[in-house]
């Protein structure tokens, strides 16, 4: 095992895109592949609504995350690296990032349309063919990613921490984007082992009203109640606070459903048709609970990719935790 991979393992760095996968394992898989042609992708799609932590790093610490990419290029003698940015970030930071990149073999690419365009195999498909569609896994991209070659994909924040780990400056922190009904929204760097409670309190954001939180992103993040927050934050560092009294849960669910219905790729039946039917029921404020939970089930268990499998999460957690019958239709 190489020095950097050993360091990543010792630091126990988990991917900050949301999947929590041990970073060293991804690196090791790419390292072990004997194909000499390898690629790197830095994912800056940040496709979940109301999450800005990667942007915070791109804006404030561009040298660090690019340093992380360069470490990976050197480690794998990679042919090329791509920084994959959503439309907004691409417009805002393309020029300043290009200046930093200089002669390094890193290309900045503007993300394809739709939420699905941030999924790793869909990114490969888009870079290769300009068409957004996820691929069958396996093969995993560490074996066959871009042009069928071993490809390492990490998110912007992950590359930032990789650079810090390499320099011995990693302090076991994470970046957290806090949005919604809070006094002090923004992105904060906090210790990894803090509970959500502690994070909210430490940033001056713990509400003095009844609330719920969406954890992990403004579309597929799960709903948690105040009583559940004595737990460390994992995955994508994103918290969105909702004032329970003032939030119309149908408006909120319609927003998620519309976002997912427009942002999915329409490849597989449960996601294409199932998400559409969820959106339809919510939009019409006419929910058939049996149908809805049948749809959740096919999404979770039969979807082609992670987006579909995770699409039921926010709805289901909201409905089950907020005692939907009482909280629901008659109120709206």
């Amino acid at each position, binding site marked *: 095992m190489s020095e950097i991979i050993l360091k990543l393992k010792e630091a126990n760095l988990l991917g900050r895109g949301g999947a929590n996968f041990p970073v060293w394992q991804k690196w090791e898989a790419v390292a072990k592949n004997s194909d000499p042609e390898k690629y790197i992708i830095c994912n800056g799609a940040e496709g979940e609504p109301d999450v800005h932590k990667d942007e915070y790093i791109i804006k404030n610490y561009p040298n660090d995350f690019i340093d992380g990419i360069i470490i990976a290029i050197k480690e794998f003698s990679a042919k090329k690296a791509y920084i994959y940015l959503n439309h907004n970030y691409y417009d805002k930071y393309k020029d300043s990032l290009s200046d930093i990149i200089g002669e390094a073999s890193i290309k900045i690419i503007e993300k394809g349309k739709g939420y699905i365009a941030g999924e790793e195999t869909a990114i490969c498909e888009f870079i290769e063919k300009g068409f957004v569609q996820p691929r069958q896994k396996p093969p995993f991209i560490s074996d066959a990613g871009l042009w069928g070659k071993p490809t390492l994909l990490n998110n912007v924040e992950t590359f930032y921490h990789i650079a810090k780990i390499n320099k011995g400056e990693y302090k076991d922190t994470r970046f957290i984007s806090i949005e919604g009904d809070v006094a002090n929204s923004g992105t904060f760097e906090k210790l990894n082992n803090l509970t959500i409670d502690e994070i909210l309190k430490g940033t001056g954001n713990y509400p003095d009203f009844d609330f719920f939180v969406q954890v992990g992103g403004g579309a597929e993040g799960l709903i948690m109640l105040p009583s559940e927050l004595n737990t460390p934050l994992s995955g994508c560092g994103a918290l969105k606070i909702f004032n329970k009294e003032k939030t119309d849960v149908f408006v909120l669910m319609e927003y998620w459903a519309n976002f997912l219905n427009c942002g999915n790729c329409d490849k597989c*039946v*449960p996601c*294409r048709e199932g998400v559409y039917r969820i959106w339809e029921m919510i939009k019409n404020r006419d929910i058939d609970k049996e*149908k809805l939970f*049948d749809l959740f089930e096919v999404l979770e*268990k*039969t979807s082609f990719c992670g987006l579909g499998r995770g699409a039921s999460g926010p709805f289901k957690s909201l409905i089950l935790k907020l005692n939907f019958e009482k909280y629901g239709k008659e109120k709206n």
Partner: protein
Amino acid sequence: MEKKRIKITIDGKEVSGFEGQRVLEIAIENNIAIPNLCYHSDLKPKASCRLCIVEITGKRGYQTACSTIAEDGMIITTDNEEISKLRKTNLELLFSQHNEKCSDCVKGNDCRLLNLAQKYNVDISRFTDRKIDFPEIEFGPSIHFDPSKCIDCKNCVEVCSHQNVKFLEVREEGSFFQICPSRNGKRDCVYCGQCVVHCPTGAFQGVDAIKIVENAMNDVQKTVIFQIAPAVRTSIGEEFGMGYGAIATEKIAAGIKKLGINNVFDVSAAADIVTMEEAEELIQRISNGGVLPMFTSCCPAWVKYLEFYHPELIPNLTSVRSPQVLFGGLTKTFWAKKQEIDPKNIFVVSIMPCTAKKYEIKREENIIDGLNPVDAVLTTHELACLFKKNGIDLNLIESEDMTPLWGDATGAGVIYGTSGGVTESALRTAIFKITGKNAESIEFTNLRGLNESKEASVIIGDLTLKVAIVNGLSNAEKLIEKIKDNPNCYHYIEVMACPGGCIGGGGQPMPTDSKIRKLRSEGLYKIDKDKQKRLAHESALVEGIYKEYLNDEKNIHKVCHTKYGKRKKENNF
């Protein structure tokens, strides 16, 4: 390299397959049914309908059998209570985008969706029809597309792209990606119908001509003639449970006679005339420094492809008409005169394995004395429908011969229906024309088989004739690139747009796949082998017609030859 054998267990039964095969392939080969819709063995696994989910011991969740590569020792469960429920819900979602229009559906009684609905107790109207207002469209006179039946598997887009036509594409409309005809002015449908035979739900079908034919049959003024294409005889039996590739020539004749039609002609007999003319044209081009290589023109999808995508190569096309058009012309001139029938009152119906043939008969270049040589084309599948509608079961009917002479083809004419057959027929006759005697062996086995691309050099006297044979338009495209680099690499090129040639045509019964195509092709070669006459120039019909009618250049030109031109896009939406 020999593939390694593996063993897997499906529902408690041990079966074997090869390393690299997918679970569903092995299941199908072993007659184990796993529900599926978007899978087609010609295409890449899409894994989009999610019906073929199975449980694999040791793996988390469910895997799709169509996309999972089988590993030695795998233990697979294809159904349980949860899988059944998941399939039921996904089927209900599939029905929510599939507007049931069963009464006139190409799938008829063999609808995979409906069969699965019954198996899984599906409430087909649990969700409203999302696509109910989607308008139906037609591509030329050939293809009918009803997007309200489409389940978005995108098989059609893949085959269209594989044909290098790229007319069908995926476009974002509102919150959905939909299958649409291209708005790109440089892409147009060539009517090959591969979308039809690869569509699992009947969203694509040939434009129905049964009504037009029935009207003609009911018109006492009309003398109706049915002429049967070569490839139909070894495929139509499939619609009546006769088995893949079963030979049904005389059964078809009997069925048509039972419909009340006495004149049943064999397009293969016309193919013999095409062979005579094409062999002659090739010899002329070679000896007079004409444009080479010469391309065959009996496939109308290929002709449209060339006219639209490569008009610069139009001079390479043989001027000889396709067999159905040539025969229709002869019927309305020579035959009509002999029978003393006004050609205006003759209604020629071609039975074709093809949807592009519906387009070919509308080509104005083919009009003779103000009349289209052929009035209507029924696909193989449509003829089967017409038989069923009239209570005719080919499996039970007593065989009958086609009309003497006009129904007598040589073996050379019959093998036109499979890729390589046109070339083999032409070679048999060209050798005779050049050397004055028949080849010692008339079977050109190196030109046979369903490989996408074949080539051979044939020594005829002083001439080494170089021929190439392709099926599938992307293979034709590769050959075109080769010719552009080296114009002298071939003398003669046979192109069929569909995989395997006409036996894999867009008007053939479904399912169609490589194994079925192979059996249909073998059926045609068997007919050839069993024929007494296997050379076009030995056909009694050919002999008689050249003596009595095609003995003057004017008639030959009028009935046997045509011209081509650059095509504008015909399908604008």
